[in-house]
């Protein structure tokens, strides 16, 4: 919740609005994901998939993975060790 989530929301809305439905989110610098961040991710994941796209996560830390798992959404996402592998997975 707060500026970080607001910034991500704006970025993803702009991307989806311009037709970019295949997204890679690098979470390496994200120390913690709260429920508002999770809500944002799953909502945009659903929007992207409805348009034939996807959202792939790169380098979430162990706490982010734990949190996504706790609320039952970890297996909705594909997770990669680096940006290149995530981008290539779209090809």
């Amino acid at each position, binding site marked *: *919740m*707060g*500026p970080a989530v607001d910034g991500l929301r704006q970025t993803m809305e702009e991307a989806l609005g311009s037709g970019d439905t295949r997204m890679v989110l690098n979470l390496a610098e994200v120390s*913690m994901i*709260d*429920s*508002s961040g*999770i*809500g*944002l991710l*799953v*909502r945009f*994941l*659903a929007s992207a998939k409805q348009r034939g796209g996807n959202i792939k996560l790169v380098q979430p830390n162990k*706490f982010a993975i734990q*949190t996504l798992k*706790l*609320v*039952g*959404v970890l297996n*909705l996402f594909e997770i990669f060790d680096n940006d290149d592998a995530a981008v290539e997975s779209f090809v």
Partner: protein
Amino acid sequence: MSPESDLGRNNTAFSELLDRSMPADPEAIGEVVDAISETLARLEVPEQKRFEVALAVQEALANAVVHGCGNDPSKQIRCRVNTDPRGRIVITVTDPGPGFDLDRLPDPKQRENLHADHGRGVYLIRQLMDEVQFEKNGNEIKMWKY
């Protein structure tokens, strides 16, 4: 390992670790969460527990801002951190709102709720903390980490 030994040396007596009031503004949450994390780090609380407490407090404060105060920054939220006589961390978040009905909270792990953009905060708190109580009709949450 006993609960007391998890918290380092300064844990044998009931004590107030932190008492903060903050405006009901999302941007004020981070400072309080950071202050609690720093306090727990000084007590040598392990990183995993610090993370669990920090996320639970983040969720409780976010609920207080949005649901307890209606995002009105003129309203105040109080957050207190204590250790009880057994050395357990006790965190209390109080807002001036009307409270809420716990029975009306959805189960976020139900299939139809997996893509919902809200409704996971209290569930997460209960998963992260060892004991959770709602008091005063829900406008005060008390959370224990053993």
